Each structure stands twice: as structure tokens, then as C-alpha cells.
């Protein structure tokens, strides 16, 4: 399977868009922290590109072939993490390897998409109750393990991914509605039995922001709003944002990097960032449309939904219209695992386009 790369299928729109996002990200990590983080980020980006090109050489169907094994492997890693992992800021999310730390929950997102796509790829004559139930189960197991870490943000991004894949796979509107009401019914149980007190506080802080302005999430939200609001139309200029420079804004180079961009670059250029994501997503769905092979198509929809969900939730929480959950801005925020995951996902997308096939089953 190796060697059948058609370079003319390389996507020359998505690639520069990603490069622009990465560049902007690096510059604002410099503005929000220091050279040390920039160097680390550059290293991650370098590894990311290497990984990106290496993975292009494998046919993506190989991932499909091994998807269940990878799925079980990562699930085992998550279980292992809960038993042995290091607790950082009260949660067990990382494996430490030397000075770098690896976050299995990030890889779980891709693994889940691959597994779901594999499971649902030939169900084009409608999904039955069993199919939907099994797909939900496939999603709920890693979600539960990740919530337990606790990492609510990553777990929550899996729900839109599941829905988008089911939707593309041809779930009937009736089942989709039923699924929606079922999850509504289950959510109170989540509140009472799964969520940690600090997570509840965050949600409360989101619902009644003025009451928690001095503490925790309410404080983060307010500082982020101040940063974005004081940016105005044109912004304070790179490196001049006072909320950023004077360290009022928490998690500046990771979760709240959009607020830094909005403060220093202003409304117009913040909209430019959004525009880049829209272009990215549009091209992605274009690839999905042109892919006749169902596994590849489901994977692409899943991966783009993952990116879109992350970007939307991250920006929305910066803007104070979503609860603050630890989700990074893809290709912009500082962070090794999320960067690698993004590159792997990107590589799979390019791979599917390059190795595009004719749907053997339908023809």
C-alpha cells in the first residue's frame, strides 16, 4: 500500500491555512509567556510535521484495519493512567516521559473516530437500534474514563463527534431525537454522581457569572472578558495587551490565547482567525463530499467535527458564552499532546484525500 501517493491530491488550501494558524499561535505564545514555551512549541510543531509526513505514506485503510486494536490499547492506557498517573493540578491526565508529558485522552479522540468509522462504514442502508446502541457504547466507555480523570472538556468534544458520524452514517432523525432526549434524561445523573465539585462550580460560575467574579472560573471569565473587551476594533498591538502583559489573564498561552489575540489584535483580526477556521472546515467538508469510500468519509467528518467543536468551545469560553473547560484552540494554543493529535488528525485527512479510492462496495 505504501508508495501510491498522488501529490496532486495534496490540499494546497488547508496546508497554508494551518501554517498561518501555527505562526500566529507561536507569536502569541511569545507575547503571553516567554521564549522557553516558544521553543518547546516549535519542537512540538517540528515533531508534528515529521509525524504528518510519515503518516502520509501509509494508506489510511491500514488505520481502519487496526482501529479496534488501537482503541483497546488506548482504553488500557486510560485505565492505567487512572491507577498510576501523576496528579497535576488535581487531575490525572498525563504520562510523564522524561521532561515531556503525554496526554492519552487527546489520542483517544482520534482513536474513537477511527473505531466509530470502522463500525459504521457499511451501514448505509440505515442504522438499527443495535448499531446506534453499540456506537454510543463505544463512545461512552472512553468518555467515562476521561471524565474520571477528570477532564470534562475532552470528554464533551466526543458527543458532537459521535452525533456527526452517526448523522453522516445515515441515522434516522427519529433515533437522533431519541438519543437527544435520552442524554437530557441522563444529564442530572451526571451532575450528582460524576462531576467533581470544582466542575460544578465552573458550571455555576458560567450560569451566574457576577456571583463568582472573585473566585476560580468566574474570575477567569471576567478577566477574559476584560481582555477581549478592551481590545476594541484594532487592539492594543502585539505585546501591549495589559491584561496579558500584567498577568491578569490566567492560562494565557493555553486555554485563553484567543483572549490575548483579541486584546492585542482587536476585533478585525480576531475575525480573521475565525475566517481561517471557516475555510479549514469548508475545505474539510469538501474532501468528505468527494470521498466515495465510506470509512474515509466518516473519519473526515469525525475529525473535522472534532476540530470545529474544539475551536468553537474554546473561543466561546473565551467570550464567556460557554463554561470554562480545559479545551485548547487547535494549532494555536500551547500544548504538546493537543498539537501532536492535531497533526495526526490533519495527516489522516490529507491521507484520505491523497489515497482517495472508489467505493468498492457500492460499485
Amino acid at each position, binding site marked *: 500500500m505504501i508508495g501510491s501517493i498522488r501529490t496532486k491530491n495534496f490540499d494546497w488550501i488547508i496546508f497554508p491555512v494551518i501554517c498561518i494558524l501555527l505562526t500566529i499561535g507561536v507569536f502569541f505564545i511569545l507575547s503571553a509567556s516567554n521564549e522557553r514555551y516558544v521553543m518547546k512549541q516549535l519542537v512540538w510543531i517540528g515533531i508534528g510535521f515529521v509525524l504528518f509526513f510519515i503518516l502520509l505514506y501509509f494508506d489510511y485503510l491500514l488505520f481502519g484495519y487496526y482501529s479496534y486494536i488501537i482503541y483497546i490499547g488506548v482504553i488500557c492506557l486510560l485505565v492505567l493512567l487512572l491507577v498510576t498517573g501523576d496528579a497535576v493540578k488535581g487531575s490525572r491526565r498525563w504520562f510523564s516521559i522524561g521532561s515531556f508529558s503525554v496526554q492519552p485522552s487527546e489520542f483517544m479522540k482520534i482513536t474513537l473516530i477511527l473505531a466509530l468509522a470502522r463500525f459504521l462504514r457499511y451501514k448505509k442502508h440505515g442504522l438499527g437500534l443495535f448499531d446506534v446502541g453499540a456506537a454510543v457504547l463505544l463512545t461512552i466507555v472512553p468518555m467515562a474514563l476521561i471524565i474520571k480523570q477528570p477532564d470534562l472538556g475532552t470528554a464533551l468534544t466526543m458527543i458532537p463527534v459521535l452525533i456527526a458520524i452517526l*448523522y453522516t452514517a445515515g441515522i434516522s432523525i427519529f433515533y437522533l431525537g431519541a438519543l437527544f432526549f435520552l442524554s437530557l434524561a441522563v444529564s442530572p445523573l451526571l451532575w450528582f454522581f460524576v462531576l467533581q465539585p470544582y466542575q460544578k462550580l465552573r458550571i455555576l460560575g458560567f450560569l451566574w457569572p457576577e456571583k463568582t467574579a472573585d473566585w476560580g472560573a468566574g474570575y477567569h471569565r471576567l478577566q477574559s472578558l476584560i481582555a*477581549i473587551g478592551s481590545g476594541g476594533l484594532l487592539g492594543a498591538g502585539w505585546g501591549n495587551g495589559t491584561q496579558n502583559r500584567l498577568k*491578569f489573564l490566567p492560562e494565557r498561552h493555553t486555554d485563553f490565547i484567543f483572549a490575548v489575540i483579541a486584546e492585542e489584535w482587536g476585533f478585525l483580526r480576531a475575525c480573521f482567525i475565525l475566517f481561517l477556521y471557516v475555510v479549514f472546515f469548508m475545505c474539510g467538508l469538501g474532501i468528505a463530499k468527494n470521498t466515495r469510500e465510506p470509512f474515509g468519509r466518516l473519519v473526515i467528518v469525525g475529525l473535522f467535527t472534532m476540530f470545529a467543536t474544539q475551536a468553537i468551545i474554546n473561543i466561546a469560553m473565551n467570550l464567556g458564552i460557554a463554561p470554562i473547560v480545559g479545551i485548547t484552540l487547535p494549532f494555536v494554543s500551547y500544548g504538546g499532546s493537543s498539537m501532536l493529535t492535531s497533526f495526526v488528525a490533519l495527516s489522516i485527512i490529507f491521507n484520505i484525500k491523497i489515497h482517495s479510492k472508489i467505493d468498492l462496495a457500492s460499485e
Partner: protein
Amino acid sequence: MYPIRNKSIFVIFLLFVFCIVARLFYLQIMESSKYKGISKTRRIRSYPLEAVRGTIFDRHGNVLAIDHHAFDISVKYRNLLYCHIVYGKNPVQRITELPAHKNTDKSCKECHEDLEKWLDGLARVLNTSRDRLLKNSKKAVKKVEQIKKNMEKKFGRPILVREENGYYPVISDVTLEKAIRIEIEKDIFPGVRVTPRSKRVYPEQATASHVIGYMGKLTGKEWEEHSEKWDNFVLDSSRSEDENSLLLYDGYAKDDFIGRTGVEAMYEDELRGMRGKRFEEIICKNTQIEKVVLERPPVSGNDIYLTIDSKIQSHAEKALGNNRGVIIVMEPQTGEILALANNPRYNPNTLNNDFTRLNRDSKKPLLNRTIQGALPPGSVFKVITAIAAMSQNTINLHTNFECNGYTNYKNIIFRCWSDSGHGSVAIEDAIPFSCNVFFFETAKRLEKELLYDWAKKFGIGEKTGIDLLFEKAGNLPDIKTTATAMNVAIGQGALLTTPLQLVRVYAAIANGGTLVQPHIMSKIKNKQGEILKTFSPDTGKKIDMRPEILSVIQKALQEVVTRGTAKNKGLEVYKVAGKTGTAETGRRDNHAWFAGYAPYDNPQYVFLILVEHTQEHGGTIAGPIAKELMSFLYPELGQSS
């Protein structure tokens, strides 16, 4: 089916993006100024720059009161709170739980090892005990916790109050060495800060304490009054209006010190200076300063030069010894006060600790007797009676009265101090021997209003207007009956005068009849050394007296020393002219007076000595004190005798 479903996913995505753009537009375009404002108030802090209070000098430039730097050691609130929770005698109650609450068991050594090391280390460096540090800061912690508790009760949730970010003093006024050591070992003592402040120091200790006065903290009510005084005080009109409104002078701060008595109070507005203000951009949380945004420098207070000669002052105080009383030395021509000595005194440096004790002391050490002690003047007053009678020709040089030790008026016996009497007495003997009967008889013949008018002319019964606060006017009674006139004539009855009033009377006799304005301040200089203000002496009130009367009185006063009630006290060599007085208090003791001037041919000093509540007489106790004073003023004359 696939393409349609792709589109609907994209539409949902675009819907979200639209929401985000709308929100972004709302925050960055419509609400932008609001958030810019919040950002400004949160990152810019203003804090006061203390002004140096003016120095008080004596007439020769010796320092009487000056601002020195003092250093307080303050500790970050969180550290302080933990220490109180763990080591305090009664642990602090709190609604919001802290980790320290869980381990308040004092036996758990390991739990608090770091804290213990830190606190004990701090105590060691400051050369004090751990308990002492805790005790000093207890009040502050309790106050902050109370504020926090109230806020949390009010809102029903944990609240971080502003006071929790502050530093609170654990020990005040440490030596420079200790302050430096804390600064150097900053890493060992995180959360400890040295706060410099200015401290008023009185290098001469208790000398002239009643003149200089002391300072005290503003009360809440006073602060309100004083803060209004400075409303809308604009310093510099060259700035923009925006900046000007920020830099408005705030006047007094809530726990400022203000002059309470003496020169410190009288010239408060001159001495005070003007506090500056600085706006700084701070880094979140650690309140580290990023840069100074706007600043108005403080203006130092002006220096005050007094007429007091601290050498004469301290000598006068020494001459008083343990006697409760007063010495005033003044220049007779100008009214410049050279010494204003009181006994007992207080030390303004330690007043804070001594205040309660001093305030309760029955001898009233806080009282400035020279201007606040209104007492019967006794025979010292007789010169006024004599001048009044002679001016109205009631008596003349040759008027004689027979003194048998007493006289009658309407069956009341008025006694002379000498039981055996003075025989036939004229004015030239009546003053030196202080014969009461002579003045009783004079008063009988005097028109009743006249004595009152003349006393008034000499400033009796009204404030002298010296530049010190809380001066008393004394009491000059209406003279309606002859009996009252007879009592007032010898300085008794309801007549009360302050020592300063009497000094002025004798100054008028010494300088040829001018009622001078006694004063303490000679000039005010700013810190650049420019003279801003000098005491402008109004020429004084000229008392309408015939010169020959004045010379008779002057001659009689000289004879008090040579052959009268103050003879053999060694005062002749100093050419002292004066009058003794022994006022009856109505109890078993007297007030002994001696008022006079020297040298009589060219008066340079007019002085007054008062010893309260003594068994002795004016001549016997105040005379030797006068000699002591003179021997300092004219040491060369003292040696030749």
C-alpha cells in the same frame, strides 16, 4: 443523502461561528469602553507619597522637632492568618475554610514545620518573641476577619476582600540594621516587607514640650472636617483636566497624625506639607510594580523658627527644679518669648505610652501653665493699682497711710501680711515692702471703675493673643463695691491672671508703657530656605501713662531688690527690678510670684517666676530662682560679686 447531510453540518457550524462573531462584536465594539475602564481600575493603583513635616527650630537654629525615618515590619495577610490559626491562643474562626484549619492540632509538628521556622526566624532577627509578634498583629487580623465574615454573610458565598491582600505590621519602629537585614534576607522571609514611615522626634526631650506641643491621631469626625477643607484643591493647571482630577489633593488620610497642642497645632497648616500621589500599573497578584503612570510629588512642610532660646529655656527649667510652677523670659521691647518653662513637663517622644498616666496625674503635667494657669496674682498686681491711683491723682508721692497691720472697712478687717504693721507708708515704701494697708486705703479712695479700667489697659482679663492654642483669659471681676476694689487692689479676690499676662504688664513698665504682643514664631522658611513669613510686630498698644509716674514705679521696683521683700537674694548685681507676690490660695498654701526685668537701666529681659502651692513666700522661694536665672543670663556679673 450524503451531500445534503454534509451541508447541514456546515450550516450548524456557520451558525455557531455567527454567534461568536456577534458576541465578539458586542464585547469589542459596543462594550469596549466599559471593559477598558474596568481594566484600568484593576491594573492601576494609587498610593500616597508621604510629605516630610516641617522642622521646628529655636531662635539659634537648634532643632526642637524633626521628622525621622522609622521602619515598620509588615507581613502578608495570608501568612499572618496562618500563624494566628496555628499558634494563636484562640484560633481565628472563619467561614471560608483554609487548609491550615484542618491541621490546627498543635502537636502535629511536621504539618507546620515551615511556618514555625519562618515565624521563629523572623522573631529571632527582630530580637523579639513569637508571641509578641502575634500579639501585635492580633487586632489587625481580627478586623480583617470581621470584614470578611460580614461580607460572606451578606452574600452567602466565599469572598476575597480587598483587605486580605494587604500587609499588616507585626512590629513597629525597628532599627535601621534590622530593617536592612530583613530586606537582604527577603528570600528567607517571603511575605515580609519593610515599610518606612516618618516619625516625629523631639531631640531635646522634655525641653519646651509645652511650647512645641505634641501630635495625635485624627478621629473619624475630625477627618471628615479636615478632608472637606481640601476639596477641589488643584495643584498644577498645566496638566489635562483628566489627570488633574486624578491628582486632586486628598487632604488628610484617615489615620493621619495632626498637631494637638503648642506650635505643632498652631502652625499645623505650615508644618504639614502636602502629600503626593502616585499611580502605578501593577502586575496581578504579587502587586509588583510594572511602571509609574502618573505622579504628583509630595511637597515638604515649611520649617518654623521660634523665638525660644533653647539654652535659656532649659536653664529656666533647671532653675525651677522640682517646684510646680512657671518661668517666662521675654524681650520687653518686642514681645519675643525666650523661654516658656513649665514644671511638671512631659516628654513628647514617649507621650503615646505615657498619655493616660499624665492625663490622670493630679499635678497636670499636660497643662501649659504659662497661658492656661489662671491664678490670683497677689502683690505682683499692686503696680497696676499704684499706676491707676497716681494717674488719677488719688495719691501722689507724698500721700502717707498709717499701717497698723490691718484696716477696717464696714466692720470687715483687711489684714496686712505684716502683723506688726509698717508704720507710716508712702508709695516709695509701699511697693518695696508690699504694704497691703497702703493699697487698701488707696482703693477706698479710688473711683470704683478706675481700677477695672486700668487693669484692662494692662491687658488683664483678656487673652494676650500669643500664637499658642488654648490660652486662658483669666478673670477680671467687675468692681462694684469698695470691698471688691480693696481685694483686687492687692491682687486677691476673684481676680485671676495668667503668668503671661503679668509678664506683659512688667514688660510695659520696663519699656516705657507699651503693651507688646507676646509671640513664639519668629519666621517660617520653606525647604529651599526662602523666608515665607516673619512675625510682623504691630507696634503694640501704648498705655497712656505719665512718665514721672512710670519712673516712680520703676525706682520702687528696684528698691524691692535692694531693701524690700527681695533683698539679700543677690539680685542687686544683676540690676534686677521686680516685685514679689504671695497670693493666698484660700487653703493653707500660697502661690509665690516674682515678676521683674533686668537690667533696670536698659531692660533686656523681662521675666516672671511662679511657684504654685508652696509654704514659702514670693521673696523667699521665687527670689533665689530669679537669682539662678540671672546667673545664667549674665554669668560675668555673677562672678564679679
